[in-house]
């Protein structure tokens, strides 16, 4: 896996683990806060999970500005 090749399916799996929602309920356009309940603690879990399990480093500040799962994927794919 290259450093920034987290697929949409993988991202949905990670989000499913953190938000405890079934993967089939998480879509590309799902809103991170209102649909998935991604609070600040869950955002921290997401950042650490991406770092530790997928070697992708994103900042807490950048996650705060994201709205949807699609935005998150864009950010991750833009990471070096």
């Amino acid at each position, binding site marked *: 896996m290259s450093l920034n090749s987290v697929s949409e399916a993988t991202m949905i799996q990670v989000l*499913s*683990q*953190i938000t*405890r929602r079934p993967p089939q309920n998480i879509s590309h356009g799902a809103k991170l806060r209102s649909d998935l309940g991604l*609070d*600040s*603690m*869950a955002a*921290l*879990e997401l*950042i*650490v*999970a991406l*770092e*530790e*399990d997928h070697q992708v480093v994103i900042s*807490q500040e950048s996650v705060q500005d994201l709205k949807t799962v699609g935005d998150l994927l864009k950010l991750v794919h833009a990471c070096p």
Partner: protein
Amino acid sequence: MKVLHPQLTFGVGGVGWAFPGDRPVSNAELLARSNNEALSPKVQAALDIRIAQTFGFKTRYLAHWPNEALRDDEMHSEGLAAQAVKEALADERNVEAFILGSTTSRRFSGSQATGVLGKFNIEAPAYEIKSGCSTSLASLHLAQSLMLFGYTNVLVSCAETMSKLADPDVRESWFGLADGAAALWLNQQGYGPRFKVQSTVFSTAGTLADLYTTRADLPPTMERVAAGGYYLKGDAAEMRMHAHRYYLKLIDAVLPSPTSRKNIQWIIPHQVSRALIDEVMVETGLKGEVLWDSEEVGNIGGASVLYTLCRAIKAEMFRAGDQILLMSVGGGLSSAAQLWTRI
């Protein structure tokens, strides 16, 4: 913001503190409570460290697990205060006045200060102070006033069970809010290390009373409890902004000159955000070593400053001539500072 210069000298005849449970609770243990077992052990271990880096808390003592229902047998602030008082007084029972500071009282209309004294069969005036995270300094401010009024010794205790205010649905709040108590026996009878209070200031800004607090009225109703009315809530960013502003005001009031700021050896602030305190110190040119315990004990609210003061006195950290700045800003909004000299 009126600054008083009492030049009051007193000895500290005893100190004590108490925490619920028999050991501190780690971030990892709290994380395990949030049903995150789907995350790999590697991620969970990394989170334990990242939470400490992000929020500034590694461990804390808890009377109550934030995601469980309240139980009658959980430790309350009155019980914690009594334990701290027992340690501070040892065999001494000559208490002329008692002040108990707590924002998390176990009693609705009753006095827990009286309840604590009752455990030691002491009859004396007993006052209660509730002033957000400035409760420690508001209590000391009153204690010193009472000594100037004629009492030759005053016992002060501050105790909190902040864990009971953590919203189960806001996991971030689980890591900071914690429980503990401290007690300090001030006397003018020659016992213990001696200090002089050079300056003291305590004030409130009632227009900000609802900024960061529990929102529901007492007594509780089923509806108020179900609506989360007794969880600590507020705008953290706005609270930080006001705290920053009031810390600058306090330091300007108590230490108006650059020289006076450079002469401080020790700073004991209320401990919720180390970054905020570091920022204030840079902006004001304040020097000195910050005593900071919240990484290990969490944010124990109104007991925070008194606990760290007690711990430092017990550890004999202060030397003759040392100047100690105590300061706090709390939700409510309350602000207080004192300048002590070890003599």
